[in-house]
């Protein structure tokens, strides 16, 4: 058995990162509920997580440490692909934010975030237990 943080935490660390990114995207949608012409965005969680796990964590990746660095193909794994939400009801000012939908998505994402956090936490606790030999 390989011992390391990546192996021990499994997919939960990536899921947690993605959940926190999604929290921000949804918060932005809610913030722009009254901005004319704003298009609501969201993350396709399943596809994004699958892509990240396939590309495999942080190992062997070029990291942009300066804002002037060019984004390479490998560095692009750090970015999140945002999709546009299909509006249920068109509005006069071109805004596609449906506050209720966003609020529901935010609440759901909040719960999922806490679930991912719990998983990471319990994995860390079991690592700790193994280290201490209790």
């Amino acid at each position, binding site marked *: 058995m390989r011992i390391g943080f990546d192996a021990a935490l499994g997919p939960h660390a990536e899921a947690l*990162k993605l959940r*926190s*990114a999604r*929290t*921000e*995207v949804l*918060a*932005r949608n*809610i*913030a*722009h*509920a*009254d*901005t*004319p012409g*704003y298009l609501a*965005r969201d993350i396709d969680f399943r596809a994004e997580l699958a892509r990240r796990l396939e590309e495999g964590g942080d190992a062997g990746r070029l990291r*942009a440490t*300066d*804002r*002037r*660095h*060019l*984004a390479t193909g490998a*560095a*692009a794994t*750090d*970015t*999140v692909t*945002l999709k546009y939400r299909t509006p249920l009801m068109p509005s006069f000012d071109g805004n596609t934010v449906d*506050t209720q939908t966003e*609020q529901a998505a*935010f609440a759901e994402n*909040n719960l999922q*975030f*806490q679930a991912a*956090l719990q998983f*990471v*936490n319990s994995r*860390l*606790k079991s690592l*700790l237990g193994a280290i201490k030999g209790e």
Partner: protein
Amino acid sequence: MSLLNVFDVSGSAMAAQSVRLNTTASNIANAESIAENPQDTYRARHPVFAQALDRQIGLGGADSEASQGVQILGIVESDAPLEYRYEPDHPFANEEGFVAYPNVSVVEEMANMISASRSFELNVEVMNTARTLAERVLSMGQ
């Protein structure tokens, strides 16, 4: 960390909504204000919201596209026609006896006020949630 960007985004939205609430208050307060000259009569004011392009986060980061707050492009005055009321005894009445009142629609302003306060509340809630999540992350492994 994206959780902390939520504070920036929601904070900018709260600031924008409070400006909107301010203009609404100003409009309602001045709904009956008249001036000697119709050109100087108060006109309803409304803020124009837009997306603020935040370039500080840098290229290629996970949050480069995501952290865009609300920006107020400016406050525009409504060009709806003024409301002329027939008050021949008024000192500011014109030759035909009409007085120019502001083009403030109080009903519209009330609707605006409710919408602004709802949006504000929602953003406060989002911020509180983000704070709870960040606190839980901080206490990870304890």
